[in-house]
C-alpha cells in the first residue's frame, strides 16, 4: 500500500493518525530543506513519535574531507530504526548499513535497469521528476525496488556548489539580503526560484508540481509532498487534500498558487535536430 511522505521543518507538521511518513533533512549533509536537524534533534522527534515512520535525508554529494564524519553520521542513523535513509552519494553504499537506503541522485533514476542496479544492492530509489507517467509505470512493472516519487512542491532543476547570487551581487558591490531570488529569461518567460544555502545554489521551478490527479494512475511506494520554500499556510491544506483525496480542497489550494504537471505527461526531447 502506498504512503505519503512529508518533508517537515518541525514536529508541528506531524499528523498523528494520517497515512503519512516524514522526511527530515540531516544537518550538514542534506540540501533543499527549510530546516536541517542535528542528530540530537532527530532523536528527540523520532522518540517522541514512536508510531510514525521517518526517513532521514542526506541527499547531496559528499566531499572527500567530509567522508569520515559522513560515515559516522550514517552509522549513528542506522541505529535509529528508521524506515529509510535517503542518500545522494554512492559512498553510502559501501558502509553495510542495515537501514534501507533510498538513492536520490535528483535526476539520474530514469529507467528500470538503473533502478535494478540499486535494488540489487538492497536500495530503493527516489524517481526523477523528468520522466512520464508511462515511464514510471514501466519502471514499476520491471522492478520491485522501493520507489519514491515527488507529487507536490517546487521541482529541483539544478544545484551548484557556488554562491551564484552572492557572486553576482559582490561583483556589482551589492549585498545579499535574502537567500531567495527569482530569475526570468526573456525567451522562456517563466519565472524560476534561485535559492542559496550553505552548500551552494539551487534553481527550482517557481510553479509547483501538483500530481493530485495522477497518483491513482501510478503505483509507487511513497508519494512525497516536498514543502521546500512553500508558503507555510498552504501545507496543512495540501496534506489534507492529498491524504484524504479531497478534490475540493486541492482546488482551493490551486486558487492561490501556480501549478505544473512537469514532465509527467510529456517527454523531454532527445535529439536537438528532431526538436528543431
Amino acid at each position: 500500500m502506498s504512503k505519503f511522505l512529508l518533508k517537515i521543518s518541525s514536529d508541528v507538521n506531524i499528523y498523528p493518525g494520517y497515512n503519512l511518513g516524514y522526511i527530515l533533512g540531516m544537518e550538514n549533509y542534506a540540501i533543499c530543506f527549510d530546516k536541517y536537524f542535528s542528530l540530537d534533534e532527530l532523536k528527540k522527534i523520532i522518540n517522541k513519535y514512536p508510531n510514525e515512520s521517518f526517513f532521514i535525508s542526506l541527499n547531496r554529494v559528499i566531499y572527500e574531507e567530509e567522508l569520515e564524519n559522513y560515515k559516522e553520521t550514517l552509522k549513528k542513523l542506522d541505529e535509529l530504526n528508521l524506515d529509510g535513509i535517503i542518500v545522494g552519494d554512492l559512498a553510502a553504499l559501501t558502509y553495510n548499513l542495515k537501514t534501507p537506503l533510498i538513492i536520490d541522485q535528483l535526476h539520474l533514476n530514469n529507467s528500470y535497469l538503473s533502478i535494478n542496479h540499486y535494488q540489487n544492492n538492497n536500495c530503493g530509489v527516489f524517481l526523477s521528476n523528468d520522466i512520464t507517467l508511462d515511464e514510471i509505470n514501466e519502471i514499476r512493472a520491471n522492478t520491485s525496488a522501493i520507489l519514491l516519487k515527488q507529487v507536490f512542491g517546487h521541482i529541483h532543476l539544478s544545484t551548484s556548489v557556488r554562491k551564484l547570487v552572492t557572486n553576482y551581487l559582490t561583483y556589482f558591490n551589492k549585498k545579499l539580503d535574502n537567500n531567495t531570488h527569482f530569475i526570468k529569461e526573456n525567451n522562456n518567460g517563466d519565472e524560476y526560484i534561485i535559492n542559496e544555502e550553505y552548500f551552494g545554489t539551487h534553481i527550482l521551478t517557481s510553479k509547483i508540481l501538483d500530481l493530485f490527479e495522477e497518483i491513482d494512475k501510478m503505483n509507487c511506494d511513497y508519494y512525497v509532498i516536498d514543502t521546500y520554500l512553500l508558503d507555510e499556510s498552504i501545507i496543512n491544506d495540501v496534506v489534507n487534500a492529498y491524504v484524504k483525496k479531497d478534490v475540493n480542497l486541492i482546488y482551493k489550494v490551486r486558487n492561490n498558487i501556480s501549478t505544473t504537471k512537469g514532465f509527467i505527461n510529456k517527454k523531454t526531447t532527445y535529439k536537438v535536430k528532431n526538436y528543431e
Partner: protein
Amino acid sequence: MNKKIELLAPAGSLEKLKWAINWGADAVYLGGNKYSLRANAKNFSIEEIKEGVLYAHNHNAKVYVAVNIVFHNEDLNGINEYLKELEKIKVDAIIFSDPLVMDIVNDNNINLELHYSTQGSTFNSDAALYLKKNNVKRVVLARECSKSDIKSIIDKTGLEVECFVHGAMCVNISGRCVLSNYFTNRDANRGGCAQVCRFNFNLYDKDKNIVSDGNNFSIAPKDLCLMDNLKDMIDIGVSSLKLEGRMRSIYYVSTILSVYRRLIDMYLSKNIDTDYVTKASIILNRCANREVKAQFFNTKPNHNDQYYKGRKEESNQDFLGIVLDYNELKKEAVIEQRNFFKTGDKVTIFSPSGKDYSFNVGYIKDIDDNILDAARHPREIIKINCEKRVNKNDLMRVNFLD
C-alpha cells in the same frame, strides 16, 4: 621520472580524431550516434569508430567511446548489442554514467574497460571504491574536486583518475542539472543540453523587485585552465588530463593540444622552458575566446570566476590557414586560407613537433601565381613565401607573441 601521463583530447568527428592524434593526443574520446551526450555533434557511426580505432592504434593512441547518457526505458533497447559492437571493434574503454551500463558489461562478460563519467559526479574515495568494486578502472572526477581531494582519492583507491584540465565547464553539479529540459524541452542528460547556464536573466528579489541591471544576471562560469597546475597534477598521480570540446574546431583542439603536449613533456623531462610557459599562457588565452580560471583546483571559485553580461572576449580571427604543401625549391608554402591576412603581416606556422616558425608575409600568390595584396577568401588556395620547411597540416596563425 614520473610515470607517463595521458593527454586525452576530444574527437568530434573522424577528421578531428586524426588531427588530435597527429597533434599529440595519447588518447581521444568520442561519441557514437547513440547514447552519447553531444546529440548535436557530428557523432560517429560504428564504421567510423572502427576506422578511428584502427588509426589510433596504428599511432599508439587509444579511443574511448562515451556511452554517457542517463538512460530512459526507451533507450534500453539495443544497448547490449551496441556495447558488444564496441567490444568487437576493440575500443579501449567506454565512458558511462548510468550504472546499468556497467551491469550489462559485467553480467555479459563484455570485454570493455569501464571509465565512470564526470556526469556521475564522483567527489570522494568511497564512491570511487564502490565503482571499483563494480570493475570500473578509471573515474573521471567531478570538476569541483580540489587538488587535495584528487590526491586523496588516488591514494585511497588505486584507481586511475582522469581530470579535466582545460575548456568549458558546467556551473552546476554535472548530471544533476536539468535546466535545459525545463527551459527549452531539450534533455540535458540525453545529449540535448541547451547550455541554459550561458543565458542572461533578470534577477528579482523575494518581493519581485528587480535586482539586476536589466538582464545582466548570469550564472555562467569562466572556462577551466589548469596549465599552471600541470606539475601538481603529474606529481599527485593523475592518470589522464582531459581537454574539453567535442564541438570545438580543428584549430582550437590542435592549438590546445600542442601547448599541453609541450608543457607535459617539459615537466616530465624536468627541462622547463620558462619563456615557453609564458607564451603558452598567451596562446591558450587567445585560443579559447573566453577567460580562463583554475576554478576548484586550489580554492573554491568566487565572484571573479563567473561571467556576467558584457564579458570580455578576445578576437578569434587568429587562425589564418592550413599548410597543404611546401615547395623546397621556391621556399614557398601552399596554404588553404581561413581568415584574412595581407602582405606584410607577421604570421606564425606551428606544428605538432612544437617548433614554431614566425615570419613576415612577403608575398601572396593565387594558385596560378598571380600576385595578391591579401588573402581574402576562406578556403582559397594560396602560396606565400616561407624560408623554413613546413609540413602538410601545420597551422598558420597571427603572430601575437612577438
